[in-house]
């Protein structure tokens, strides 16, 4: 009797379980023995679809990471160009705007923690307090810090190299 679609689907899942950890070659060999041949074709299609789906997800995730990051508006500062980015955030070249004086060059690091909750924000504020106490020639001098208008934290650093 011809299996129903649901029964066929269960067969595909069973064969998938048996073959998922094998290399592509071993898998093909084993599929040769699967009867009827239409079932083997469907299993092969399933493996192909799994790879295609995973590839699409990976590609979109990579594209999303490459998207130009949001540029925050920080009162009293002017953001110029992004000079680097990493897992934690993006570093911009910027200027601190001073009344009756020439703007002071600074490096501004904006963290990617806008998706985080209250606990992460609290952690960020605590960390700012610790960083502010550091004073060493080999450590970038912390200068100012806070949150951008949309709730994203920004971390303002005075640059030692004088950008």
């Amino acid at each position, binding site marked *: 009797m011809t299996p129903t*679609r*649901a029964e066929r*689907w*269960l067969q*595909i*899942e069973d064969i*998938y*379980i048996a073959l*998922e950890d094998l290399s592509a070659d071993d898998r093909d060999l084993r599929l040769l023995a699967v009867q009827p041949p239409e079932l083997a074709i469907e299993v092969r299609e*399933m493996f192909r*679809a*799994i790879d*295609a*789906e995973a590839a*699409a*997800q990976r590609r*979109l*995730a990579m*594209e*999303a990471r490459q*998207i*130009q*990051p*949001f540029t925050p508006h920080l009162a009293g500062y002017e953001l110029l160009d992004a000079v680097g980015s990493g897992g934690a955030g993006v570093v911009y070249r910027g200027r601190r705007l001073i009344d009756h004086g020439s703007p002071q060059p600074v490096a501004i690091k904006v963290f990617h923690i*806008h*998706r985080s909750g209250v606990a992460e924000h609290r952690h960020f504020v605590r960390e700012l307090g610790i960083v502010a106490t550091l004073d060493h020639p080999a450590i970038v001098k912390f200068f100012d810090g806070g949150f951008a208008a*949309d709730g*994203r934290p920004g971390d303002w650093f005075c640059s030692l190299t004088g950008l």
Partner: protein
Amino acid sequence: MQADSQLTLILNDWANGDTSAIQRLLPLVYPDLHKLSSALLHRGRFGDGTLQTTAVVNELFLKLLAHRPPQLESRKHFYVLASRIIRAALVDYYRQNQALKRGGAMTRVSLHPELLWVDATSEQVLDLDRALDELEKIDRVQAELFSMRFLLGCTAEEAAALSGLSKATVDRKLKLARAWLFERLGEPNSPRPANV
């Protein structure tokens, strides 16, 4: 009729197998679903271009729990109901905003960070809705796991606990369900999310 008793009656209908009850349920839970629409419209404020359904779902549960008919006993039954509501809301939202989308006024919003190829504001939601109906007929467990994981925002562990399956089984079933749905939906037309 009071909205509250209406809600109880509709939930009873749904628990008794009347699937059309979801459509009647929508207007009654709209204040909660409005937040979902706001998340879609103001995606820039959330920043990452991903739909955030978890908060909406939590409020839905609170509302539904207060009107729980005796037939709606298990937690899983509730999750299935909530995912049905979210699906109906996404379809409804898409139909109401098609014109905006064509005009390019809306940007892409991924259904879930781990399912970036489904755009919750595109025609894909109609395909997803149909495909999930189809998957339910072939493999109800896979359809339910997919809904818990990607429509309600459950983790794989939570989906495992709710369904009484092992985490490894849930992962495998989700992998098969995603591949099956990917074959039917393909990728959204817009090549990549707009700038944040």
